[in-house]
């Protein structure tokens, strides 16, 4: 299967221009972002289906509802820029350029997967596209992202690193240690907080005192809080922060307010005890894909048939990808103790 996303120029500081005046956005870019969001949505729907039909081992944490963040941020990056991701990482992985068939293979524990089936949903990594891996330790990748930024700075490559995490990760001390060092040493790292309001089954009001923004501002880190459902807003903010980072102005903190439509993981079906159905429905009114589609159509930048076409193509790509993975062989048992040491 063809690589899902056209690769972008890599290399020393070859950033795309950022901060273009509003209204003059590149249509191609918008359609590309649309396509990527749809790809994530379709991928995750298929994951849910695979789980429900008992074809997928383990669990998965769906990114549905939050697509604008991964895509809006990753579209502002070059393919050799780094990201670190989370247990809810499929969206980041796709947005950074991964192919859905190889991803499905990984999620099904097949040899053809990105990690040869050894990582699975919570550890999927895609080194070729700068994805240093999902991480099943909440907050566990903060140091890794800052370390990648440290490398970029020391090696003078102009790369930046993005650390994605949920608001729940603000409970982890490591994040604060890392922010402090990132600011002290002006590392090109962007901390992206996906605030979907829930740490598993607990509202973040019950787990986070004070303000989220203050957590980074304390260290003198440039902080922005934005609507995570509007990809144009996310993408513009990301471009700004990437540019800052590339210019040596140091780290930043981007809080994106968002919502996960599904449960904490695919098995979390009965959610009424921790969040009201109305809240779920309300947020679905602010769907990131719809918001972008409406803008594209409203501004007459393209028309519905084009969007429909994209969706249809992606849907069949995803279907083929899942099929490929379902038919792919498992790793050979001898693989069990390879790759323990390099």
């Amino acid at each position, binding site marked *: 299967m063809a690589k899902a996303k056209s690769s972008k120029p890599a290399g020393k500081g070859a950033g795309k221009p950022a901060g273009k005046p509003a209204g003059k956005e590149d249509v191609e870019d918008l359609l590309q972002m649309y396509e990527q969001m749809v790809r994530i949505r379709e991928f995750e729907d298929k994951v849910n289906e695979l789980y429900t039909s008992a074809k997928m081992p*383990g669990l998965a944490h769906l990114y549905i509802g939050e697509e604008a963040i991964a895509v809006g941020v990753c579209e502002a990056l070059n393919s050799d820029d780094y990201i670190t991701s989370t247990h809810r990482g499929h969206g980041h992985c796709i947005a950074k350029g991964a192919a859905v068939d190889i991803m499905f293979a990984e999620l099904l*524990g097949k040899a053809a997967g990105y990690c040869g*089936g050894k990582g699975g949903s919570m*550890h999927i990594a895609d080194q070729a596209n700068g994805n240093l891996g999902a991480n*099943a330790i909440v907050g566990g990748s903060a140091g890794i992202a800052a370390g990648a930024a440290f490398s970029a700075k020391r090696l003078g490559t102009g790369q930046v690193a993005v650390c994605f995490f949920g608001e729940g990760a603000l409970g982890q001390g490591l994040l604060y240690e890392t922010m402090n060092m990132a600011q002290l040493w002006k590392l090109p790292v962007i901390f992206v907080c996906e605030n979907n309001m829930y740490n598993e089954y607990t509202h973040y009001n019950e787990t986070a005192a004070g303000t989220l923004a203050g957590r980074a501002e304390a260290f003198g880190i440039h902080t922005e809080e934005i609507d995570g459902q509007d990809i144009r807003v996310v993408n513009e903010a990301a471009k700004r922060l990437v540019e800052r980072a590339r210019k040596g102005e140091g780290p930043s903190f981007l809080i994106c307010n968002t919502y996960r439509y599904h449960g904490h993981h695919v098995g979390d079906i009965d959610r009424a005890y921790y969040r009201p159905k109305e809240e779920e429905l309300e947020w679905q009114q602010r769907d990131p894909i719809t918001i972008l589609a409406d803008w594209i159509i409203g501004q007459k930048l393209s028309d519905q048939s084009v969007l429909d076409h994209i969706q249809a193509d992606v849907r069949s790509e995803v279907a083929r990808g899942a099929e490929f993975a379902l038919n792919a062989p498992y*790793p050979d048992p001898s693989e*069990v103790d390879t790759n323990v040491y390099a």
Partner: protein
Amino acid sequence: MSTPNGNGRVITMGQAIKEALAEELRRDPTVYVMGEDVAEAGTAFKVLKGLVDEFGPERVIDSPISEPGITGLGVGAAMTGMRPVVDIMFGDFSTLIMDQMVNQAAKIHYMSGGKLKVPMVLRTTMGATRRSAAQHSQSLHAWFSHVPGIKVVIPSTPYDAKGLLKSAIRDENPVVFFEDKMMYQLKGEVPEEEYIIPLGVADVKREGTDVTIVATSSMVQVSLAAADKLAEIGISAEIVDPRCTFPLDKDTLINSAKKTSRVIVVDEGYERYGVTAELASVIADGAFYYLDAPVKRMGAMDVPIPFSPVLEDLTVPTPDTVFEMAKALCGAN
């Protein structure tokens, strides 16, 4: 062998654990439970579901995702009159709390010359084959067992889990209590009446004469299944469950070894520098002149736990592999 007189009352391991907590919460107002999603959600494994309804959110407390923080809070609360039960969702997250457990909780009684104490329980999980991959499948009880000042419980049945957890909560020391995630649905007899099981007493889960299998936690079930198969080919296996890695009931282990002259130690932690090493060397030393063959060890394969089911299933001992090992060991007679 401690025979539960359950009068036929059969409950799951998860229920047994919840009962133990409920009884202790009821008995002692200084007991509280704290952890991520322990209240309404009743933990990620739903084991505590409903507990908050009886005891309220002041005693069954949802915390931020701050393992070091809630452990530290537990240490301080334990030093000052409370009996915290801290819930660390996955044993893999033990990595985050070693300072509070090892440099603080374990040492405070000693460092203060006996004046302060830390009566807290840390409940956490162990065990693989849940398709949870490398960061959610480890069994890290060897680390805690290495540390003076800490007690470590690794129960294998609902009956044991309940009786041992109640003892752990009443103990004056930090106790780490490991629950195998795959065993929460395991059923067993548990009496209606209250009982406790002292820490540090091994239990012979099955008597036998040809080979001793020392097994912990879920490996007890694995070994019992292996013993059934061994019986079919005429080999009588004795299954000894230490129940605690510390205090360790060395005598029961060594005496069984002396009786059978052949020993296998089975545990789900990584084999290298793990629990099997300690148990094997205690037995090899204590029963040296009685052994007909080297003490054999079976732990988790020394690899990060792979996600792919076909690989993951290779990493832990199974009834088949334990059976084969025992057969070979006895054949070597």
